[in-house]
């Protein structure tokens, strides 16, 4: 579906938004491709909602441009944009039935009445709400309201559908189920979705690409895999998933590999590095807990970084175990291990002296 040569559906160009001198969005540039399920991920106050509201047309950028499907939308009001928004609060009209809510946008578009009826019925059956068409929103459950909001936004066949924290108001079980339904629906319709969320799991499972925002700027854009395995900076590494951050200094760079001395771990760690620029000062090494192997015997051979420590904390979850291992200097490393073999006895116990090792290829070098 994604045509690499086609121009992006949405082009955000150097967009900045300030409120009373406070910068909410700071010269953000983004390309969103046609048919993508794109997620904007970030903590509260990172500017993601402001960016979304600018895409919808509720906020006007202080500077910069927003181009949607080749047309400059910067000065176009929300009611004239080929964009629809599903509100976090759903914002269903309480005095209208489900049917009337969904039909509202088509009526404003002056679609002929028989077509409205047809499209509303079609959309309601798509989100499995046909039998509830005559109900008022206050007689619906949270999940049903969410589907009405979705139907109301999609029935206008927007070029771009924006979803503001689409799953935040649902309870956990429903959320997992709805997540897959949403992704399925997006695949069926081929509409470009932009989801704003603070929940990294939601972004990872839903999106084909993620933009991580921090303090009004884009920290990284990439596929869920890229963002998780190749974080561009400390913020992304720490925000998405669990990670061990190890401060150190570069002692040697040779043959596409840097050696970083960590006093905290009392170890020299190797990491892939093609470009030594900017490494003269300190560097930060990162490694995900699940990439680390924990063992009582010294690992033999291979391209591995090895650290020694003592098990201080142990959490057994059945499918996996979490360890917190303290090195001699007091630094703590998190390790998670799948319990692949069936055994009631743990191979590693509290206060055991252990070796932690991970592949050089799993080691992340963070420059900033």
């Amino acid at each position, binding site marked *: 579906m994604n045509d690499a040569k086609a121009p992006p559906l949405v082009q955000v160009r150097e967009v900045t938004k300030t409120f009373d001198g406070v910068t909410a969005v700071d010269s953000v540039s983004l390309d969103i491709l046609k048919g993508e399920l794109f997620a904007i991920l970030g903590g509260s106050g990172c500017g993601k909602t402001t960016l979304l509201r600018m895409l919808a047309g*509720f906020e006007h950028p202080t500077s910069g441009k927003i181009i949607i499907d080749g047309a400059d939308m910067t000065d176009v009001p*929300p009611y*004239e944009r080929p964009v629809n*928004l599903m*509100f976090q609060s759903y914002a269903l*009209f309480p005095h209208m039935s489900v049917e009337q809510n969904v039909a509202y946008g088509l009526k404003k578009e002056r679609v002929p009445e028989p077509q409205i009826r047809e499209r509303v019925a079609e959309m309601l059956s798509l989100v499995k709400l046909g039998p509830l068409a005559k109900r*008022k929103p*206050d007689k619906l459950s949270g999940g049903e309201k969410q589907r009405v909001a979705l139907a109301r*936004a999609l029935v206008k066949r927007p070029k771009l559908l924006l979803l503001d924290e689409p799953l935040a108001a649902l309870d956990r079980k429903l959320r997992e189920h709805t997540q897959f339904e949403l992704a399925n629906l997006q695949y069926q319709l081929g509409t470009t979705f932009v989801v704003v969320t603070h929940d990294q799991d939601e972004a990872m499972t839903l999106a084909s690409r993620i933009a991580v925002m921090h303090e009004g700027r884009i920290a990284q854009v990439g596929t869920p895999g890229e963002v998780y395995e190749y974080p561009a900076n400390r913020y992304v590494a720490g925000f998405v998933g669990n990670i061990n951050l190890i401060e150190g200094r570069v002692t040697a760079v040779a043959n596409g590999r840097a050696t970083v001395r960590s006093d905290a771990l009392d170890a020299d760690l190797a990491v892939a590095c093609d470009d030594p620029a900017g490494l003269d000062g300190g560097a930060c090494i990162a490694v995900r807990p699940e990439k680390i192997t924990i063992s009582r015997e010294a690992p033999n051979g291979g391209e591995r970084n090895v650290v020694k420590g003592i098990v201080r904390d142990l959490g057994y979850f059945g499918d996996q175990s979490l360890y917190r291992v303290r090195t001699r200097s007091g630094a703590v490393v998190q390790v998670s291990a799948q319990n692949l073999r069936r055994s009631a006895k743990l191979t590693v116990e509290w206060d055991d002296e252990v070796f932690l090792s991970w592949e050089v290829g799993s080691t992340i070098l963070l420059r900033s």
Partner: protein
Amino acid sequence: MSNESNGERSLRWLKRAVAVPYLWLLLFFLTPFLIILKISVADPVVAQPPFTPLLEWGADGFEGIRATFSNFAFLFQDGYYGIIYLASLKMAAIGTLLCLLLGYPMAYYIARQPPERRNLLLLAVILPFWISFLLRVYAWIGLLNNRGVINELLLWTGVIDRPIAMLYNDFAVYLGIVYSYLPFMILPLYSNLERMDLDLLDAAADLGARRWRAFVDVTLPLSVPGIIGGCLLVFIPAVGEFTIPALLGGADTLMIGRVLWDEFFINRDWPVASAVSVVLLLLLIAPIMWFQRLQSREHEAGR
């Protein structure tokens, strides 16, 4: 155990506390009404009090109940009262409509201000209550008089060469009603509009509605309870209004409040006066009952 009995005890206290205002209403609203009702079925006599008693006591005790509906019959036979009831309803209805047209934009404006500003503006709306109602109505006489502030100013600036008759006519009564009752329209409308979820307006805009359209489609229908509440608060007291037509109205301004006054104090026909007020009450109960039913239906729909 002790927690439960604590809860029960506080519930019992709550019930007692709630009983106080009910008793108050019973004593000071229902009792006078029953007295009025009693007088309305009596015959007028030249005596003190000027009506016949309901219960007749003879030499050998209780003789019977004496009640007549002739006062009510009189009200219906004499077209005069019917005309005045209609005129009062009309004046109150027009006054209410004017209050609504003026109060809605004001309430809307206040509700959309930042919270600190809202309280200041609301204070300004209820500020006139600090001064006695009667004094404020009198103040209008000073303003509207042929030699009042407004006419003097217009004459002095040369806009007019003879004073405009602004006092002692229907215009002055409407002005008085709108001025006096506007806060009663603004407050319920404000509390309704202030509660509205502003995301709904964004949603309407997102779905293709311009601002005015979004107002008509969303804000207006959702503010109907506020509109009805405000209108009842203005309409009901305005129908029976006495002070404003008496002080600002002309000789031809007929309102039921003035007729009541005349029957009581000039004709000293207390039974007819009482019948007039009983009929007025019945007339006004109808819209209240209608509103009640509308609200309970809405309440049920909400569940």
